[in-house]
């Protein structure tokens, strides 16, 4: 997997700090599972967290050490991490409750399907299935939208996004992504605002489909 489009420094830093809405965290965790470069960058930001931790102290009560020592039990036995079993990276498989076959797709028309994933407030996450060669309706964004390609590829006017690539789009982007010919395109997308579609009909349907 040759990844060309990576996570931004801001995303990695806020994720390292533990302050990213859950839907975006899911995209970050899934991308990092596929991308050693971003895993290493994340490690560097966690080291900044370690440095920040070193800077301030607050006095603990006298009894705290004894109290803590008294409750130490048998340490956990080492466990081998569970290797990825199917197609979906583990953090995503946890949200789907299985692999690609377990995704509960809802049709959106023109062969496009989506499955909304259960995440906390502030942003939403969904899987998108776009048949090869099919365009996603022209849309702009409010807020931030992350789209991580899991299978196939899509293009817009500027770039191509293949497996593992993450597209980071904000207010300024208005584009018409088209799934490439070949394999159908499957993406994980997260946004902190509902997408607004330029065409009238999809906009009317928007509240119904939550797209």
């Amino acid at each position, binding site marked *: 997997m040759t990844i060309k489009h990576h996570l931004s420094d801001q995303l990695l830093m806020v994720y390292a*700090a533990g302050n990213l*809405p859950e839907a975006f965290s899911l995209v970050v965790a899934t991308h990092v599972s596929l991308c050693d*470069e971003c895993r290493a*960058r994340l490690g560097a930001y966690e080291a*900044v967290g370690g440095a*920040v931790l070193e800077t301030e102290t607050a006095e603990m009560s006298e009894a705290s*050490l004894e109290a*803590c020592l008294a409750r130490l039990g048998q340490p956990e036995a080492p466990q081998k*991490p569970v290797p990825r079993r199917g197609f979906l990276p583990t953090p995503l498989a946890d949200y789907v409750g299985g692999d690609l076959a377990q995704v509960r797709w809802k049709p959106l028309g023109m062969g496009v399907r989506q499955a909304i994933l259960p995440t*906390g407030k502030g942003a939403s996450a969904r899987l998108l299935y776009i048949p090869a060669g099919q365009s996603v309706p022209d849309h702009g964004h409010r807020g931030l939208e992350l789209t991580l390609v899991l299978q196939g590829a899509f293009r817009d006017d500027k770039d191509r996004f293949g497996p593992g690539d993450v597209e980071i789009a904000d207010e300024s982007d208005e584009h018409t992504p088209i799934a490439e010919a070949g394999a159908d395109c499957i993406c994980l997308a997260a946004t902190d605002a509902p997408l607004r579609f330029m065409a009238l009909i999809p906009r009317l349907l928007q509240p119904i489909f939550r797209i």
Partner: protein
Amino acid sequence: MLFKAYGDGLLLDHRPSDPTANLPRISCMMMSQAITLHYSDAAPPQRAYVGPRQVAQGRRLAATNETDWAALMLAVRDRQDRAAFAALFRHFAPRVKAFLMKSGTEASLAEDCAQDVLATVWQKAHLFDPTRASVATWVFTIARNRRIDIARRDRRPEPEALDWGGEGQEPDQADIYEAAEEAARLTEALKILPDAQRALVARAFYGDLSHSEIAAETGLPLGTIKSRIRLALDRLRTKMS
């Protein structure tokens, strides 16, 4: 058993008894002017931790002469050494408490949670790998997760864990040294940032700043840390394939 003298601070260094395993580390320590003394026939002392003053002393020294938290953490991990744990507690619990208070947690809850975090350090010691992260970095990730629990907000999905195959394998002392050294340099670099910039970085990690409020440029030298982790990942991938 090795004793390392840091000025008037003295810390015991629990490392494997195989003398050759220590060689790269010793030479590195000598280059950085830390005095390394051998007490090969000394009786194994009961306490790895000599006193709070000495630990505090360790913190004030230059980056290259840091207290060897990784060695203490390995003593906890590999031998359930309670004295080593006490030394780690005295250093890190007040820092975790401050971190949680800065993140908006009230003092008495922060104190309880700092105890929880340190108990987790003991409980999950097997996950600590000194070649990949410093003790401070590792403790930070546990404290961060505890803070997320306190806020009872969103879940934070974690990336896939990798099988580093570290269990029962002796970590490379030079790698441990490198990781600790880089972490110490980063801590120093953070200290000398202009106040406003340092405050922004700190606020980001206290969970005060959202994605749109964060500046990408921290002014911190992160390249070497990233490169070292990347190299370790490349080596792991080669081994796996």
